[in-house]
């Protein structure tokens, strides 16, 4: 990406910004001395892990900090030369949408669910322009076409829930850019989207920026996205700037230790060296597994939705099988059917040789302890009112292990997942996200399962924490010989942990085989599409260099 010449006017100029948690000179600093400039036509990516202050910085610019809770106490924020920190509420309202605009992470929740999307865009024009209804509608429809929405007249009248995630984000972008603001703040705008949609949205933002000369402040935690969109990069940590530089300089020659570690944590898309083929016994097998949801209606005919169809897979002791796919591909449905959290409607699940797909609750009980699951969000999967020790010991106690013994074992498991022994009597809220996921893993291991199902178990974690948890899973597998069924949307994670991969789309298996094969020589168009959409696929972040061309997934060599 070309660097933007320094002759272009500065749209946003932040100098020595300090934001405190509450008023008063001794309040904690959430942002501590941040300075940055974004020129017209330039994209500055602010990268950082959770708690780095990247979102607070952007909300400060927009004047959207929660009043009284977060207070800018020093420094200056200039938007096209105008100081914002001393601007009145009225002036800030005038500047929003006209000179600065913002798009947010979750396009479902960022749009008002009870107002048609066209009217939500219209509101911007009604507030800020004197155009009549007809002129406004023309302008909105033109903008909606610019963001490549199909059938704009219909979508104009649609409610957010009637649109796809990508379409909603396009509406957000149309709403933000309809008045051609000088500055666009994009706060993780593609994080909630699938990779293929993400790719489209990123190129859309690029294109519109080129057409309108907008300055873009792009906030993300994803190095892949940074590599795709940034001109310059600013790395933040705990409210301070770690380093700033041109994209290439940051990726190739990061100066600071923290940046190096951050880049080193990004899993590579190039699959790890395959382990030798295994002749260990098969612990989990499914054949023709399917789940059909039937929607009953009062009158009319029942609707059928096939969430998963004809899924056949095999997992051996000590191996890792990945199921990858976008949202709605049915990967989680398969995982839940296998663990029998939901009941499959067809096919078989054999756990250690026994068919369990149709067993009653009672008969299933002895099998349950052989297969355990770890969920995505450790903030919601642990009961907040139960101590960590009790959570881990509950399973074994249910299976008749004496309480004292189960608690002792809980202590050992906490040690196994690298948590301090005193964690046993503490509550989940006293731990960080990564620590909680370790607790969730310890809980799953408490029953000595043969199969551990990890359903997007590292997706909610920061990259550095994610790397640690992946390492932990690997270590546990080596020590206990456990089989891992790993559900993920992230091909990078799959490339680093899986022996075999199953690619799913629309509830069906598209392609399956050894990870090294599938992720470098995909035979199916959909798999290739997924790989090509993976952000930053041209970079080997951990080694600070572009990926050698011969290792990149080849788009050629289609199936014979």
């Amino acid at each position, binding site marked *: 990406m070309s660097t933007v010449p320094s002759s272009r006017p500065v749209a946003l100029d932040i100098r020595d910004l300090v934001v405190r948690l509450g008023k008063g000179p001794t309040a904690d600093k959430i942002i501590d001395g941040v300075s940055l400039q974004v020129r017209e036509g330039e994209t500055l990516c602010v990268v950082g892990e959770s708690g780095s202050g990247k979102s607070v910085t952007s909300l400060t610019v927009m004047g959207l900090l929660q009043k009284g809770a977060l207070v800018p106490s020093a420094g200056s924020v200039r938007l096209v030369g105008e100081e914002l920190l001393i601007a009145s509420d009225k002036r800030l*309202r005038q500047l929003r949408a006209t000179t600065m605009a913002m798009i947010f992470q979750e396009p479902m929740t*960022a749009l*008002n669910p009870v107002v048609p999307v066209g009217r939500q865009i219209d*509101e*911007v024009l009604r507030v800020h322009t004197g155009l009549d209804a007809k002129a406004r509608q023309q302008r909105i429809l033109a903008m909606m076409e610019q963001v490549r929405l199909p059938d704009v007249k219909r979508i104009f009248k649609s*409610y957010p829930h009637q649109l796809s995630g990508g379409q909603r984000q396009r509406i957000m972008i149309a709403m933000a850019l309809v008045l051609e603001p000088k500055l666009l703040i994009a706060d993780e705008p593609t994080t909630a989207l699938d990779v293929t949609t993400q790719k489209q949205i990123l190129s859309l933002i690029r294109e519109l920026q080129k057409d309108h000369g907008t300055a873009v402040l792009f906030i993300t935690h994803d190095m892949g996205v940074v590599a795709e969109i940034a001109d310059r990069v600013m790395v933040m940590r705990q409210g301070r700037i770690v380093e700033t530089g041109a994209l290439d300089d940051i990726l190739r020659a990061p100066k600071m230790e923290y940046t190096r570690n951050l880049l080193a944590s990004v899993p590579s898309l190039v699959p790890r060296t395959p382990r030798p083929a295994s002749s260990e016994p098969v612990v989990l097998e499914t054949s023709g597994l399917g789940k059909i949801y039937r929607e009953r209606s009062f009158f009319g005919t029942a609707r059928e939705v096939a969430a998963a169809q004809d899924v056949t897979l095999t997992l051996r002791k000590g191996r890792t099988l990945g199921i990858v796919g976008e949202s709605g591909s049915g990967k989680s449905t398969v995982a839940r059917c296998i663990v029998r959290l939901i009941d499959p409607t067809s096919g078989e699940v054999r756990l250690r040789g026994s068919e369990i797909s149709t067993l009653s609750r009672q008969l299933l009980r002895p099998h349950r302890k052989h297969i355990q699951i770890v969920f995505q969000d450790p903030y919601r999967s642990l009961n907040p009112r139960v101590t960590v020790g009790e959570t881990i010991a509950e399973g074994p106690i249910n299976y008749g292990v004496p309480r004292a013994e189960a608690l002792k074992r809980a202590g050992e498991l906490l040690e196994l997942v690298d948590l301090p022994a005193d964690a046993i009597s503490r509550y989940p809220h006293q731990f960080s996200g990564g620590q909680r996921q370790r607790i969730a893993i310890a809980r799953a291991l408490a029953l000595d399962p043969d199969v551990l199902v990890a359903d997007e178990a590292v997706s909610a974690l920061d990259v550095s924490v994610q790397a640690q948890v992946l390492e932990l899973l690997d270590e546990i597998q080596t020590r206990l010989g456990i089989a891992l069924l790993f559900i993920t949307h992230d091909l990078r994670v799959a490339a680093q942990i899986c022996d075999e991969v199953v690619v799913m789309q629309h509830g069906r298996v598209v392609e399956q085989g050894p990870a090294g094969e599938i992720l470098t020589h995909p035979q199916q168009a959909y798999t290739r599409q997924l790989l090509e959409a993976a952000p930053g696929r041209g970079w080997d972040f951990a080694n600070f260099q572009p990926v050698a061309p011969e290792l990149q997934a080849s788009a050629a060599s289609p199936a014979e």
Partner: protein
Amino acid sequence: MFGYLVRRVLAAVPVMGVVALFVFLLLRLTPGDPAAILAGDNATPERLERIRTSLGLNEPLYVQFFTWIDRLLHGDLGVSLISNVPVMKMISSRIEPTISIALSTIVLSILIAVPLGVIAAWKRGTWIDRFVMGLSVIGFSVPVFVIGYVLIQVFAIDLHWLPVQGFRSLSKGFGPFLERLVLPTLALSFIYVALIARMTRAAMLDVLDEDYVRTARAKGITESGVLLRHALRNAAVPVITVIGTGFALLISGVVVTESVFNLPGIGRLTVDAVLARDYPVIQAMILLTSGIYVAINLLIDLAYTLLDPRIRY
């Protein structure tokens, strides 16, 4: 939308059927001879027989039921055992005060409580918020009759602004009608305002933390626009629910209010009927209140679909 409406109305039919069956059996399943219950302790055998024949008690139970339903559908609710007046006539002559108070209370409460709740949520944690919440605690904890007597003392007896009690029909002029409606409505509104204000505040607090409220602010919309167009509209569903279910409170409150202000409404009619074991009147009142509940629930469900496009119909 129309199909949904028809479906919902049809779904109300079995509900009312069950209620009717219950009301019918209420009298028949009461231990002892219904005729003896109806006639009272000192009835002569001739009177008992007359009652049996008039109620068709010598017929099989299902014949009795269908005869009763048939009459019901023709607007015949029976005759009061005490006054010998048709029940339908008793109700229609006493329904105006009750409906007037109920409607004016709902309207007044919504007009006061919704803005209070919105402002309290918007200014959360400030003295305004605490004031509104304090007010709502008082509204909940002080009984209707206490509020009623205090209002009478202050506005009718001390200040002579309004009549002490009684009711004047709307057909006799709006002024006298309104004059006598003010105090009962105010008294009854207290608890209702407390309830709705509290719910509005809670619903608004939830909604104000939503991302789309942040989006609205990011668009440069004024605070009033954010609160009314974006927040309140989304907070409306739980508020509507509580307004509807609060009707239970209202009906029991009406009985007390009618007594305090000496209004000839159906609340007092019910109490009198229960005390006198005037079964036909009791039956009619149960049917009436259940019918109102079913109708209100239907209206609430329809309001949901109008307020929230995600609720399918």
